[in-house]
């Protein structure tokens, strides 16, 4: 075993190497040089940095026992003396050297390529620079229509630029998709407002009078006006250290290594995108990870080998799913048959290649619906589970069981057998457990649905059943109720459940019925579904009394109304407290007092605050631009408008919101389910925040929205949450559990990738139009009022067990003795 290991480069490959070495008990020194100023981060997820993910969230954890030399590149290797020379002039001796220097974007040698306004798309710094330049820019061009080019184009588009893509080949993503797929992809991309130029190179980038990029000129003379040019025309391995010290490199670059990832010098390894392994440079992170693990094993004396990798890819770019797996380069179709399914209206293209006896699956290409990727990729090289045409239709193949040696996670090379073994041996019960144990699903995440399936196949109850009465999850029940137009619990449980329900499923169904607008929550049978809080439209307290919370939209209240609250509290002897949501809680009311209290409040113009419901609670605000000398927008006005729009909206859990008038964020909007922070241009919308038990900062969903755009986005966010969240799942947990996370959420509600936005909008309109104050309606209905008594047979008698003392001038419950502690 070697005593001193030096690593040049600290990207994902180096990180995996270091992590593996330490996890496997390496003894000796480990020194890592990284040119970038920070530890390795998740480059695959780089674009999410633009949508608000922080560097900290992207950074991989660094294990203990590593000496990091960050912001300090290696400039030379002296193989004879076995030292590396760092950029700061220091020299570091090694017993083993690992080159993990990755690759650099290829910038074609065109005139003007160094002008200010030209960028590449590879590091955090690149993105910072692009974002800064986008402020003054109107249009941008991406040179390169491959995977990374389209990702960069999407980023420019989201930064608000008119975006062009220039691709040399005759179609987009020429490496992944064939002609038919490229055409469908192009239509998708164009429908998002991007301009695509295929079969086009770059003649020059020209500057304007300010010396910055002004246009890109194509070889045919056409000029594209743009202030930003991003080069993303392939990658070149960073093999310069190896070249300079005389190690062999490939004709088109890449440090030549053997199957143990060793270079021609037995003390020097190369891994990741700088290595030429198994005859090629691998530009996907999965093979880079495998190479890192192989090198680590060899360094520790093992004999692992890298013999090439599955280059299948599945991605979602600009809201379009694109997938390619197995072998798909059969231009002449020799030795292969292909089956094509094409739906130009829906924008779906799928093509499967099978052996000429139509028995063995060779590969496939999908655009617009990557369904077959998950189900069919594991069958590559194996007998087809059904006829090719059946397999091409969505859903087919989903029921077929995967073979054990099928590779489920291609990023981390995890087979189904390994996952099943982990489930059995470690007693795993959820996807997180599989991730922790096997790494499957931790990189690009596209196999997560597959992991769930394997859990189910292994007999694990993945816990979607709500309770003993319904085998469905809340989201499934929501669909059933909505699609079949069910309006009563009795019908739902008779047709889809068993028994007569319980305290778990009844409130869930009550909430679904309320979200879908089925009248007053205490009407008819619905009353019996409600939790005690909803049943009495107040919050139960430990001694069986209730609290009363009138709505104070945005926290703004007139002196007259404040006085009414004070008077009511005094007359009914209630304890008063200011809440965290900028309103006033009145505690200690007995059931039979509630209508009397509310009569006073409703007469004075108050409405229910729904503090008792799984519903919108409050939209907090700071004083904002009206008063505050820093404010840039009217945060109070917006908060009131939003609170009035969403009041009474029932949801899987409570919903809290806030609006701050400027970036100082006095309303703490980022700790809310949805939070809004004013900008000079409009509003930034953050979602999925949480205080409480598991604090979480909300993520930026969209920036600089106009007020109407903001409202529409919040409408859809809330309705999508209401439709799909689990029971008692706050928006933070919902967002974290969503396959595809924030990007998926954005695709659904801003790009309408599921085609449900019109529905979500209509549902919210119905909510807004159908809102009535629950307390006012209750006071008008003698049947409902009759239930507000301590005793049916003695309606005027208070519950004698409720007693109070005073403390600090207010009432306080006298604790009752209990014989058992829960």
């Amino acid at each position, binding site marked *: 075993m070697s005593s001193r290991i030096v690593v040049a480069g600290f990207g994902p490959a180096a990180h995996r190497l270091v992590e593996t070495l330490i996890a496997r008990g390496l003894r000796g020194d480990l020194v890592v040089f990284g040119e970038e100023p920070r530890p390795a981060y998740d480059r695959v997820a780089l674009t999410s940095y633009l949508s608000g993910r922080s560097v900290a969230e992207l950074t991989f954890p660094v294990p203990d026992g590593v000496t990091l030399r960050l912001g300090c590149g290696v400039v030379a290797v002296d193989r004879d003396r076995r030292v590396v020379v760092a950029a700061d002039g220091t020299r570091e001796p090694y017993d083993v050297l690992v080159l993990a220097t990755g690759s650099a974007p290829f910038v074609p040698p065109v005139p003007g390529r160094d002008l200010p306004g030209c960028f590449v798309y590879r590091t955090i710094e690149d993105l910072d620079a692009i974002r800064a330049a986008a402020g003054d820019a109107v249009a941008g061009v991406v040179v390169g229509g491959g995977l990374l080019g389209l990702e960069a184009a999407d980023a420019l588009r989201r930064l608000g630029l008119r975006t062009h893509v220039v691709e040399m080949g005759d179609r987009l993503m020429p490496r992944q998709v064939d002609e038919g797929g490229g055409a469908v992809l192009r239509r998708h991309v164009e429908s998002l407002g991007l301009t695509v130029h295929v079969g086009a190179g770059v003649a020059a980038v020209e500057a304007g009078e300010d010396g910055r990029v002004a246009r890109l000129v194509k070889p045919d003379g056409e000029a594209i006006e743009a202030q930003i040019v991003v080069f993303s025309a392939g990658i070149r391995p960073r093999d310069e250290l190896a070249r300079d010290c005389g190690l062999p490199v490939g004709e088109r670059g890449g440090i030549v290594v053997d199957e143990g990832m060793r270079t021609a010098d037995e003390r020097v390894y190369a891994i990741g995108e700088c290595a030429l392994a198994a005859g090629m440079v691998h530009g996907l992170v999965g093979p880079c990870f495998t190479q890192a693990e192989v090198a680590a094993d060899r360094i520790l004396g093992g004999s692992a080998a890298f013999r090439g990798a599955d280059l299948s890819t599945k991605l979602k770019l600009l809201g379009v799913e694109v997938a390619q797996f197995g072998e798909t380069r059969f231009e002449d179709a020799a030795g292969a048959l292909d089956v094509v399914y094409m739906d130009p209206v829906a924008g779906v293209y799928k093509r499967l290649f099978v052996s000429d006896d139509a028995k063995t699956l060779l590969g496939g290409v999908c655009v617009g619906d990557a369904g077959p990727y998950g189900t069919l990729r594991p069958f590559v090289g194996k007998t087809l589970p059904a006829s090719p045409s059946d397999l091409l239709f969505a859903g087919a193949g989903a029921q077929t069981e995967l073979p054990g040696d099928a590779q489920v996670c291609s990023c981390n090379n995890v087979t189904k057998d390994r996952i099943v073994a982990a489930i059995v041996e470690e007693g795993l019960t959820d996807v997180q457990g599989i991730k922790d144990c096997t790494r499957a699903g931790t990189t690009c995440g596209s196999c997560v649905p597959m992991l769930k399936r394997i859990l189910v196949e292994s007999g694990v109850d993945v816990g979607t059943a709500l309770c*003993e009465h319904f085998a469905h999850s809340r989201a499934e029940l929501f669909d059933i109720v909505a699609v079949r137009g069910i309006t009563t619990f009795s019908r739902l449980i008779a047709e889809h459940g068993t028994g*007569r329900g319980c305290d778990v499923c009844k409130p869930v169904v009550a909430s679904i019925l309320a979200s879908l607008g089925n009248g007053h929550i205490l009407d008819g049978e619905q009353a019996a579904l409600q939790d005690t809080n909803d049943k009495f439209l107040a919050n139960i307290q430990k001694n069986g009394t209730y609290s009363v919370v009138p709505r104070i939209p945005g926290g703004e209240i007139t002196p007259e109304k404040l006085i009414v609250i004070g008077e009511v509290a005094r007359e009914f002897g209630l304890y008063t407290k200011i809440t965290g949501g900028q309103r006033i809680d009145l505690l200690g009311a007995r059931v039979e007092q509630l209508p009397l209290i509310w009569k006073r409040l409703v007469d004075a113009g108050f409405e229910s605050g729904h503090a008792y419901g799984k519903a919108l609670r409050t939209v907090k605000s700071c004083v904002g631009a009206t008063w505050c000398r820093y404010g840039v927008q009217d945060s109070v006005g917006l908060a009131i408008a939003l609170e009035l729009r969403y009041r009474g909206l029932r949801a899987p859990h409570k919903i809290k919101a806030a609006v701050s008038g400027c970036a100082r964020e006095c309303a703490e909007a980022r700790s809310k389910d949805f939070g809004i922070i004013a900008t000079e241009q409009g509003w930034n919308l953050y979602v999925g925040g949480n205080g409480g038990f598991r604090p979480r900062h909300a993520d930026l969903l969209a920036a600089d929205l106009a007020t109407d755009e903001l409202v529409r986005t919040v409408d859809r966010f809330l309705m999508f949450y209401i439709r799909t969240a689990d029971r008692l799942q706050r928006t933070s947990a919902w967002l974290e559990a969503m396959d595809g996370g924030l990007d998926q959420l954005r695709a659904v509600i801003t790009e309408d990738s599921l085609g449900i936005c019109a529905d979500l909008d209509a549902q919210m309109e119905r909510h807004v139009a159908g809102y009535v104050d629950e307390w006012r309606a209750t006071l008008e209905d003698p049947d409902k009022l009759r239930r507000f008594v301590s005793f049916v047979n003695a309606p005027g008698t208070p519950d004698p067990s409720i007693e109070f003392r005073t403390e600090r001038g207010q009432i306080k419950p006298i604790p009752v003795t209990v014989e058992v502690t829960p």
Partner: protein
Amino acid sequence: MTILGHTALDHTGLDHAALDRTYADETGGGGPGWTPVCPDAQLVPELGAAALVAGRQVAVFRTFDGGLYALGNRDPFSGAQVLSRGIVGTRNGEPTVASPMHKQVFSLVTGACLDDPGITVPTYRVRVAGAAIEVKVA
């Protein structure tokens, strides 16, 4: 200082004198040991009601299939008189009510707590007599 059952001032114009009379006063009392608590039609399926019978608080329930049950109203875990306000349902076919405080589930048939064996609340007899629901506590 102890404030016992602090009374509300009335702002609704309801006839409190009428409210203060008990249902038994109005109906003239039930049979020996039986106390009428409310009109039969007033007890909604799966929506419990509390009654004060001979100084005891009783939670009365009607299940979906028409069964009548009565338990002590006091939740033994919190000490609060609230079981009548819990959600009525079934567990493995047995009719139940869940305490609205901390959600422990009690059998309507036996009063046993199904989540904490050993804890039981009292059960009482209950019947429909004519147009009234009647409870017997002793």
